[in-house]
């Protein structure tokens, strides 16, 4: 019985040693094959277009709603969230960004970030007849694992057709 336990201990040590060398090979030289399947789907570090997904649609005649769905393990910087309208058939009113949560950083101090989901109401002042408005958005975020995604930009059409003030 004691012999079996002792062997198991050394088995555990051997397994740990192998895991260690494999792990250090992966991070130090960067030359192992990427393996997405090994630990299942849980908290993968996603490509940026999957980490931050936005939806934008008119809420009523003079408001648009933008929602960002933020993957677990990632966050968006509040001060990097920007909105603008293209063209001169509509103008954007003052945007009140949600407070978000505090993220502490040794360089930037306490910054405000968004996690999981954030919704922003955009006041849109449209001139008569302007039903389709082009919205421009910008955002930038990082992953808790220690990498940052580059700033992202997108354009999307807000269709206010049929919505009366």
């Amino acid at each position, binding site marked *: *019985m*004691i012999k079996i*336990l*002792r062997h*198991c*201990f050394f088995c*555990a*040590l051997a*397994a*740990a040693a192998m*895991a*260690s060398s*494999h*792990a*250090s090979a*992966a*991070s*130090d*030289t*960067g*030359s*192992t*094959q*990427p*393996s*997405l399947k*090994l*630990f299942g789907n849980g*908290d*993968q*570090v996603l*490509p*940026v277009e999957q980490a931050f997904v936005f939806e934008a649609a008119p809420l009523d005649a003079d408001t648009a709603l933008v929602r960002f769905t933020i993957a677990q393990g990632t966050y968006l910087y509040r001060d*990097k969230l920007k909105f603008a309208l293209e063209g001169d058939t509509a103008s954007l009113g003052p945007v009140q960004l949600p407070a978000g949560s505090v993220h502490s*950083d*040794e*360089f*930037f101090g306490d910054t405000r970030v968004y996690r999981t989901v954030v919704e922003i109401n955009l006041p849109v002042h449209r001139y008569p007849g302007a039903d389709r408005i082009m919205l421009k958005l910008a955002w*930038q975020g*990082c*992953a808790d*694992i*220690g*990498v*940052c*995604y*580059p*700033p992202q930009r997108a354009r999307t059409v807000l269709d206010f057709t049929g919505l009366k003030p």
Partner: protein
Amino acid sequence: MLSAAAGAYRARLYRLKTVRLARRWWLGAAVLGLLLLAGYGWLSMRLASLYDPGRIGQMAPEISLVDLEGAEVTLQPGQGQALLINFWASWCAPCRAEIPMLADLQRRYGSSDFTVVGIGVDRAPALKRAATALGINYPVLVADPHSEDIAQQLGDIGEVLPYSVLIGRNGVIRALQVGAMRHATAVNWVGQVSQRVSQKTGN
């Protein structure tokens, strides 16, 4: 007789119990160690999925960019100087955390054999301010947003920062790293490409 047998039985139980407790301690430590290493391995795997290791062994492309003073600089791999190219940005906190280590590396091992080169994926004024604040002592080039993404060309398919590439003196890509590099890794990289690591003491 019965009590003697019972006494012997209890004594044996007692020995087995202490043996089991002692063994449990070893097992607990081994399991904890395994879990820690597994966690570390998991973390490495996550970062490993964001770059293309297929670049390793390929010749690095020639890179023509502008430096912080606006002068055009061309990196020609294979001219005898190994390069540690580090992609970073002023807004990237993990990049800023890593840079002092790279500056120290440059101080110790920068030579005709080896140099660190920073490529800022960022606007020049912000890069310049950050470079001064961080004490960068190696060339910094500004990535051109209008031309093909060099980081992607060098395997950063996730386009994340920080991202580092080791290019040998013969111009071949030797190693890639997503996320900040540890000092030990950086010294290991220099050792792969330069004779000078063994000559300098105190690493």
